């Protein structure tokens, strides 16, 4: 893959993220978030994670933005009392956390190393056996829905839960109590 492009997109993603945080107008920050998701989805497409890219395109850039905007219209659009100053103590905390992250990355296998443990320990079997065991060339699908289908079940339940939660929290009734 073209690492220049990769790099470029990463930079833009970072810019989008920061400006989405900084934006005064919530609507614009929602739009920036959508852009962010879209760029990230491109990034994944570049990394060859087409399924993830697809769902990010639909969910991240599409639906969640729609939900976001809908909510903003329900509530208020302005971010009141937007502090321009940067709080020092949380910043330090965050930076320390970041240092921990980076510290963790030092011993990591190189980016895209075909010999990394992740690539050699468990996953090869999925690629080798998927066709003969599940007759499904798309390894992601076979892993998703067969090898680790219980995770997917749990995940579907999560979605279901979210739906129920929204109903419970939001659905009005003729009752007095809500």
């Amino acid at each position, binding site marked *: 893959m073209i690492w220049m492009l990769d790099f470029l997109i990463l930079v833009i993603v970072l810019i989008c993220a920061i400006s989405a945080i900084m934006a005064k107008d919530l609507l614009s920050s929602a739009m920036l978030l959508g852009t962010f998701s879209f760029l990230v989805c491109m990034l994944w497409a570049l990394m060859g994670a087409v399924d993830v890219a697809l769902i990010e395109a639909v969910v991240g850039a599409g639906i969640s933005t729609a939900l976001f905007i809908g909510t903003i219209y329900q509530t208020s659009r302005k971010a009141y009392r937007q502090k321009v100053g940067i709080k020092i103590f949380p910043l330090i905390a965050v930076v320390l956390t970041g240092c921990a992250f980076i510290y963790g990355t030092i011993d990591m296998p190189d980016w895209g190393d075909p010999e990394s443990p992740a690539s050699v320990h468990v996953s090869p079997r999925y690629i080798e056996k998927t066709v003969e065991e599940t*007759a499904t060339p798309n390894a992601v699908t076979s892993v998703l829905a067969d090898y680790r289908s219980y995770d997917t079940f749990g995940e579907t339940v999560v979605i279901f839960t979210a739906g129920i939660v929204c109903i419970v929290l939001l659905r009005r009734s003729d009752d007095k109590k809500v």
Partner: protein
Amino acid sequence: MIRRFKNVVIETVCRLMTPFLQLFGLYVIAHGHYSPGGGFQGGCILGSSFILMAISYDIDFAKKYMSEIKATVYACLGVIIYGGIGMVCLLIGANYLDYGILHTILPVDLARARAMGILGIEIGVGITVMAVMVSIYLNLVSGGRHVEEKVE
């Protein structure tokens, strides 16, 4: 509902796009074995088609096709399909979600049986995801009101 604006272009374009969107969603679900996609992606696409309706027209229009109750029922239905397939495997005598066992009741070999199982649960996932996405959206933008009314 956000803001009701009559705009012929948007309405027409959406009216035209919606069937194709839904068709594409079904394709993504069904063709997940051979190409990127699967239950989640397809379900989200289906859901977004309804959301598109709701945006371009208004919520009532979308509710004509996917009312809240219907969405709720579909949501349950999807997960029940998923869990049900698992239970079927369990009842036939294999472990939970072990589709391989399905070849005893389906006229296919073991690998195909697994593919079938995968297809089944993808469908289940698709239904649930679609329904939940729609229901979340409807609940959010309508603030949970059953009957539609202007916000501002």
